[in-house]
């Protein structure tokens, strides 16, 4: 049955490969490329938020590190795009390693805020440094091939999705992460090393995010600290994941498509009411938390086994600093 689901994913993926054959309009292809990018960012965000229970407000930092590494290698060192982007991913991974080592000891709210501080610190650093162009940002050589970027983005996000699917839904890794999310102390007693697992999840989330950042930089041809290292990436990924359904792979995809489609449609056709968009988005987010605690996916009828726990099933406090029952003596 699970393999039938995989077949479904592969079918959808194959269908998206054909998009450029049908869509000749370059703007539409740009929209599709960006949609795919947001799917990627939402899914990578969910590895930590949904599967591991850690809200990473520094997600944009990985995106920015990837974008800037790629840009610096291409502009200052004359590298080709592909190795530069790969190195961008590696840089994000190393960033995760360095940042994760201390921050992953922090629980819940502290982690969320520490990662936010970290992202801001990196933004400040980029603003001050010369090699990054400071506040002026960096312009990359313009390579304006919509199809190229669509396929690169799709390939990258596709590989990420299927790798995640295998690791999180098929291999033991996903369940182990969920065990850590549900109860870190309890997981230890079952032979799981939470620190190691969380670190792996952190890196697993960071590397593709960094590469996506690199592709983004080359695609848009211009990056600056405000747009690549601001809160937009983290905030929007969070909204997409929550709206779609956390702790699943399909949830973020659905959430990303819906939010992005809504945003883009609003932007394209109701430009005069831009501020209204923010108000509606805010209302949608707040409303979905109140009325759809498991995201859109939670209200769709489930075939076969459930994807995520229904509201009645979930216990409190996955991220909350727990009151450690086992530790009170006596």
């Amino acid at each position, binding site marked *: 049955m699970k393999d039938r689901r995989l077949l479904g994913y592969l079918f959808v993926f194959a269908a998206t490969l054909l998009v450029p054959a049908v869509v000749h309009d370059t703007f539409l292809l740009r929209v599709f490329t960006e949609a795919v990018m947001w799917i990627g960012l939402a899914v990578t965000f969910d590895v930590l938020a949904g599967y591991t229970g850690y809200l990473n407000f520094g997600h944009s930092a990985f995106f920015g590190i990837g974008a800037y590494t790629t840009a610096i290698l291409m502009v200052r060192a004359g590298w080709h795009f592909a190795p530069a982007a790969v190195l961008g991913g590696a840089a994000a991974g190393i960033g995760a390693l360095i940042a994760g080592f201390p921050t992953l000891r922090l629980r819940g709210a502290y982690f969320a805020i520490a990662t936010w501080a970290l992202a801001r610190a990196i933004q400040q650093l980029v603003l001050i440094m010369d090699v990054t162009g400071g506040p002026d940002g960096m312009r990359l050589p313009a390579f304006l091939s919509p199809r190229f970027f669509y396929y690169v983005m799709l390939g990258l996000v596709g590989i990420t999705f299927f790798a995640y699917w295998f690791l999180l839904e098929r291999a033991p890794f996903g369940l182990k992460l969920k065990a850590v999310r549900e109860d870190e102390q309890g997981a230890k007693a079952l032979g799981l090393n939470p620190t190691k697992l969380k670190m792996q999840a952190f890196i697993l989330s960071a590397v593709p995010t960094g590469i996506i950042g690199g592709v983004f930089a080359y695609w848009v041809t211009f990056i600056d600290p405000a747009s690549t290292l601001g809160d937009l990436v983290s905030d929007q990924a969070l909204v997409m994941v929550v709206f779609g359904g956390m702790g699943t792979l399909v949830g973020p995809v*659905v959430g990303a498509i819906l939010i992005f489609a809504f945003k883009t449609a609003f932007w394209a056709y109701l430009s005069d009411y831009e501020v209204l968009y923010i108000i509606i988005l805010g209302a949608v987010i707040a409303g979905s938390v109140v009325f759809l605690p498991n995201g859109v996916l939670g209200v769709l009828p489930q075939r076969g086994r459930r994807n995520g726990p229904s509201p009645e099933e979930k216990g409190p406090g996955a991220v909350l600093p727990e009151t450690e029952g086992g530790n009170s003596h006596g």
Partner: protein
Amino acid sequence: MKKAVWLALIAAVAFAVPLRAAEKRDFFKVGVVTELSGDLATGGNVTKRGYDLWAEAVNKAGGIAIGGRKYKVKLYYSDAQSNPSQGAAAAERLITQEKVDFILGPYSSGVTIAVAPVVEKYKVPMITGSAESPLIWKQKFLYTFGTIPPVNFTGAAAIQTLAGLSPAPKTAVIFGSNDTFSKATAEAFESAAKKAGIKVLKFNIVPAGQDLTPLMSAAKVLNPDLVAFGGHDEELIKLVKSLRQIDFTPKALLMHYGVTEPAFVEALGKDANQTFGGAVWTASEKTKSKILWKDSPTYAAAAMKAFHVPADYTQAGSSAAGIAFQVALEKIKATPPISEAKRAELIKALEGVDVETFYGRVKFATEGDYYHANVGLNPLTIQIQGGKVVVVGPKRDAEAKAQYPMTPWDKR
């Protein structure tokens, strides 16, 4: 999963609807990419007012006259959301979906730099009525023009005016917020000050949006004659309040764009008085023109009537961007829709534009570091006097004498 497929299809259909063939039409489609939301929405809306006012005036006059016929203009907005990548998408949408004939550009330099390669690719001319960073022009984009001279060009002029006052300021503390425009402003101030023989006691680029009171305390101890600051609207207000609160009145306080914004005077009241600023246009500047508005006051009055907000130079520059297109179009007799070949001609025509407008002379550089920026203008030094923006330099444009040195805060 099937649901996701459906959703994708619905989204695809929704976007496919506006696809249609380019038809014959009797009006110009003008795309506008600017920041209508996000952090830079304040400035983006100033450019919008400028563009709107131009379109309204053109249409009221019956349109742009080409070969004995008049063609109206219609603006197509696309919001850059203060984000460069969104700006690029906005430009691409306007070009491929709306099939606009030419584009009026963004408020900020960052968005302009991201939009420029897109208009370059589709060979659609763009004039920005606002972006002032020197970086744009160094890229030498063929299809991108701007009506406001780069800030290093205008910033220097204000310092020169101040250096001509007596007694001339001898020492200065100069700093700027760490964003593209403000940093370039501060650097322009610094190099001009050095050239003018003013000793720079302290020069700092500071993180944007901070409370700078402690920095002002440090400046107070150095007791410079001149405090110059490159920053944005809210930062300027906070800065004046800081100086007020630590009770430090330098002989001159110089800032740049934002001083001419009505919000500056409204928020600060009499504390706004005597602040110097740089500008390339003011509502009272003496200009003469045959196109749309005969001089600055006429334009300012029209703007006030339309929006109930005084016009500043960014708004005027945005309206002037429209005029530049208008002039070039008339010259090459282009009729809508403009073909790619005709657009290339339009570029040549724009490079040849040299016209007096209500905003002053518009003439784009065709080489050098200011490539395609308007170098026809002559930068002004302004001062807030009695809550009004008054030109105090250079001499031949001055409407009033500079009030100098500044009256101490508590004597106002």
